[in-house]
């Protein structure tokens, strides 16, 4: 019998996988049972991940390894990078499940929805736990396939079109990634993420091979990370129901891409070697352009979720920028943004969902006076939006501060200009929303108001998640210096794995 430590990564996957199977097996109308299993799975996973956090902090090794082909291992291992991503996913999965239960109340096809929803989280967990490139790839692909039914869930023409666009982009990306991966295996054979130096010892004649492989891998991952010009599926995919958008933008898909880029830079190539190869400036340039382009496009979007989507395009590239600037501080800024962007953006999508659900308002121009009608929702949204701009003491401020510090530290002063411009642009497209919500009186009746009878502005299933994430946004920033903050964990990562001599 394998030990508990070597089974834990599998168990973490199983919590949501079993939930998915159970949900598919249950009938469409078994709402209460389904809710029970959904929450049970989410809480069990959170507990397991919590144990994993404790274990990794104390240098435990959690590894599941299985040789399924000669020389080819299927490896699930929890390192400190894993913890960063899987804690985020497990935490936000629980909240999004709660939210989705409230959001989809009474709508059809909920079995399919929640089934794929759980699968999607399984894949995300797999991505975070993957211990080598092939395992990563398997889960990364599974993620594509399991999110597709969620994107097209509504079944409208627009949703189907968005879904097909999503598949075209992501499958194209996968092809590039697969090619890069196979090429790499031909050159150096299989190796785990924690085996550093596998590439740097290669014959210098293969230098150009490695550069092209880097481009293939990052290009493939860049689709999900919405790097320009591979970002177009993301704004289209916002037709999905709000909880899906919340998950796509904050945790699952775009983060899997960004996380993959981090893995490739640090664990496949190694940051020093990537720098020697000279591939980092190109990556920084693309990230910088994406940051500015996404923000500029967001300025003119009247559709609420579309504006948020372009904002995601911009914000996720902070992670790539931080990683590619080369330097411990910028890395801290980039990695911590993985978590910070997640909690901020999920708050915003929850809020957008509430506005759509309660009032039928989908456009920014319909938001006049919404703060009075949905004060809790819009307060949460405001906190997240101010955080995105980088207003202290919120989470986004910490990311931006470290990115700026790191850029200066690495002597890349141009990046400060990008960050400053991006902050101004963020302000220019988020502050008008806040202004409309809080300072303008309601002009027209709401497009489709669903009356809610109760003490709260909207059912607590829908109100609690954004309020909870908004509180996280405040604490992640205000208490960034505390040992349990995301920032402290990222500093642990940078000390332990990457920049230690």
């Amino acid at each position, binding site marked *: 019998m*394998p030990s508990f430590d070597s*089974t834990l990564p*599998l168990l973490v*996957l*199983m919590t949501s*996988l*079993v939930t*998915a*199977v159970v949900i*598919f097996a249950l009938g469409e109308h078994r709402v209460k049972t389904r809710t029970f299993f959904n929450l049970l799975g989410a809480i069990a996973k959170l507990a397991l991940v919590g144990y994993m956090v404790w274990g990794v902090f104390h240098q435990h090794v959690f590894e*599941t390894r*299985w040789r399924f082909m000669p020389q080819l291992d299927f490896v699930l291992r929890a390192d400190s990078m894993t913890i960063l991503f899987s804690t985020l996913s497990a935490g936000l999965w629980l909240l999004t499940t709660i939210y989705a239960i409230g959001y989809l109340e009474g709508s059809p096809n909920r079995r399919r929805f929640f089934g*794929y929803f759980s*699968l999607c989280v399984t894949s995300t967990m797999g991505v975070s736990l993957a211990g080598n490139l092939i395992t990563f790839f398997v889960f990364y692909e*599974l993620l594509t*396939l*399991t999110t*597709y*039914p969620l994107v*097209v869930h509504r079944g409208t023409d627009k949703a189907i079109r968005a*879904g*097909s666009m999503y*598949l*075209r982009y992501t*499958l194209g990306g996968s092809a590039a990634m697969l090619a890069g991966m196979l090429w790499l295996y031909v050159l150096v054979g299989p190796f785990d993420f924690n085996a550093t130096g596998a590439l740097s010892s290669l014959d210098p004649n293969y230098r150009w091979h490695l550069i092209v492989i880097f481009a293939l891998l990052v290009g493939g991952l860049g689709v999900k990370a919405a790097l320009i010009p591979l970002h177009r599926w993301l704004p289209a995919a916002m037709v999905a129901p709000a909880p899906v958008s919340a998950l796509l933008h904050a945790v699952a898909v775009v983060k899997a891409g960004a996380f993959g880029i981090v893995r490739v830079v640090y664990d496949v190539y190694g940051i020093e070697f990537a720098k020697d190869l000279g591939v980092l400036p190109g990556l920084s340039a693309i990230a910088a352009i994406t940051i500015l382009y996404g923000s500029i496009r967001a300025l003119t979007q009247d559709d609420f979720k579309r504006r948020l989507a372009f904002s995601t395009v911009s914000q996720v590239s902070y992670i790539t920028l931080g990683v590619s600037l080369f330097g411990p*501080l910028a890395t801290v800024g980039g990695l911590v943004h993985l978590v910070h962007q997640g909690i901020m953006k999920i708050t915003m999508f929850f809020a957008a969902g509430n506005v759509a659900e309660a009032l039928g308002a989908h456009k920014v121009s319909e938001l006049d006076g919404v703060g009075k009608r949905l004060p809790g929702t819009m307060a949460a949204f405001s906190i997240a939006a*101010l955080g995105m701009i*980088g*207003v*202290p*003491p919120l989470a986004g*401020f*910490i990311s*931006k*501060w470290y990115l*700026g*510090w*790191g*850029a*200066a*530290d690495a002597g890349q*002063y141009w990046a*400060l*200009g990008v*960050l*400053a*411009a991006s*902050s*101004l642009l963020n*302000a220019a497209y988020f*502050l008008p929303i806040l202004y409309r919500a809080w*300072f303008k009186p309601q002009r027209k009746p709401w497009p489709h108001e669903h009356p809610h009878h109760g003490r709260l502005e909207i059912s607590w299933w829908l109100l609690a998640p954004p309020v909870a994430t908004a509180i996280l946004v405040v604490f992640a*920033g*205000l*208490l*960034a*210096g*505390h040992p349990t903050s995301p*920032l402290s964990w990222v500093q642990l990562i940078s000390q332990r794995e990457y920049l230690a001599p």
Partner: protein
Amino acid sequence: MNLLPLPDILLPTLAALALLGPLLLAFRPRATGWAAAAGLPAVALAFVKPFEVELDALLIGVRFGVHPGNAPFLLLAGALWTLSTWFARHYMAHDAHADRYHAFHRFAMTGNIGLILAQDLASFYFCFALMSLASYPLVIHDGRKVSRQAGRAYLALALLGEVVQFAAFSIIASQAGAWTFDAARGALLESPLRPWLIGLLLVGFGIKAALFPLHVWLPLAHPVAPTPASAVLSGSMIKAGLLGWLNLLPLGAAAAPAFGEALIVAGLIGVFGAAVVGVTQHQPKAVLAYSSISQMGLMILAVGIALARPEAMKYVFPAVLLYALHHALAKCALFLGVGMATSAPRAALGRAVLWAGLFLSGLALAGFPFTSGAAAKIFLKTAAAEAPGDWPARLGMLLSLGAIGTTLLMARFWWTMKKKIAHDPDAHHVAARGIWIPWLLLVGLVLTLPWWFAGWLNAAKAASAFSMKYALPLGWPVLAGAGVAGLVMAVMRHGLRELPPGDILAIPVWTVSRLVSFYRLHRPTLGARVRAADEARALARDGLKNLLRALAGAERYLRTLGVAGIALALLTALLIWRLGS
């Protein structure tokens, strides 16, 4: 200033009280009774011995403290916020959005007091941003179009200031390897990037300090806010930029002659330009806002002197502190006086007292002999005498001319106030009698507190303000200004043509509006070109579409069969098998 002997254990408590008091009250805007008392801990902190508190868990490590450089700022901010909160309690009592006002008033107060206490870059930045952003709802409070436009200009420049500070702080931190002001000042001295950093700091803080030409938001925003907010904007918050410079610029340690002289020139442009534009204003609060720009010009030029010539710092430092305190109190009294006028005291005694207060505060601002402004001017002249090159001679004359300008502004202010009191369109705003007490207290402070502080700084120099030696040099500009004002009023009975508030902002606004109308005029031809480009793009897109249609087939297959479902089943089986083995 170490006049209040408190046990060490109480000092951090007092600092926490100074910050948490207004912060918690911001969440209880209806609590107005004793809210003003929230400013008193800050006043008390001005009198304790220097200390520093470290809180590593907050943000990325927070340092708060009191030292001789920030104690006067604590004093002025504590006093102004206390009295304006008190004033606002009665003044805003019948306002429809009073709760919103009180909440943001207190947030801004927290930020203002916090940035004075801050001893590291991150908390300074945090508090500065809190103050700036919380003031935006104060600026647009009444929701009029002119307020909203002013609010937009304010917010745009405030955010620009934030990001420039951010860039400066990032570079400083990377050079220093730490966040504390001590480390930052050291790093700034060593850094090869020093000129860049000084430039960024001048712009980043210059916006708040109304440094020409970054002042354009101020004459728009300060007058439109409700009166108690205008008073703290122009009295206390405007000093935040100045404090930022005192905290970080290498004043007294390294010379930056080019920047220093540029600051002196920019300060002088502020002093005189604001006087010229200000006297044409029709609204008393707009006149006062320009007067603030003019007065800040004096402090800016003093900082410029110290930047150009480090030896001058020991004269510049006390002069700037005293001037900041004196200007804050007088300007706050004048602004609140405008609010007093809207309650239009009918009784003759009330009017007499109001005019006496406005008159005394205005004379103090102009630096009339034997007023507190005279002491401030004497300190400033001493500092000006230490300026580099042939500046001392020039500045001596220019400062006197500046006093003429201030007198003209004050005369203009009194004139516009006279009209306002005579027939006030806002007279329906019947404020409670309660506003009298804070205002009278403030006028009392204007007359006393700067004297006391001047004496504490340098007793001999403060006493010299009472000697006849300075009566003539300080008195003639004020008298001359009064003469010119009388002459102008006699000749131009029908008033001056108002220059647009925001002055040079009118230039880019005009240019953009011309460009827009040019574009509208020529849009038909531009449009044709845009359409041609669109068509070319559409053709390219069609080609791609055909290629991608094949993929669509594969996708339909995925949708019908649910490949993901199969993959799921396989994976489950696989993992269960692994778990068992």
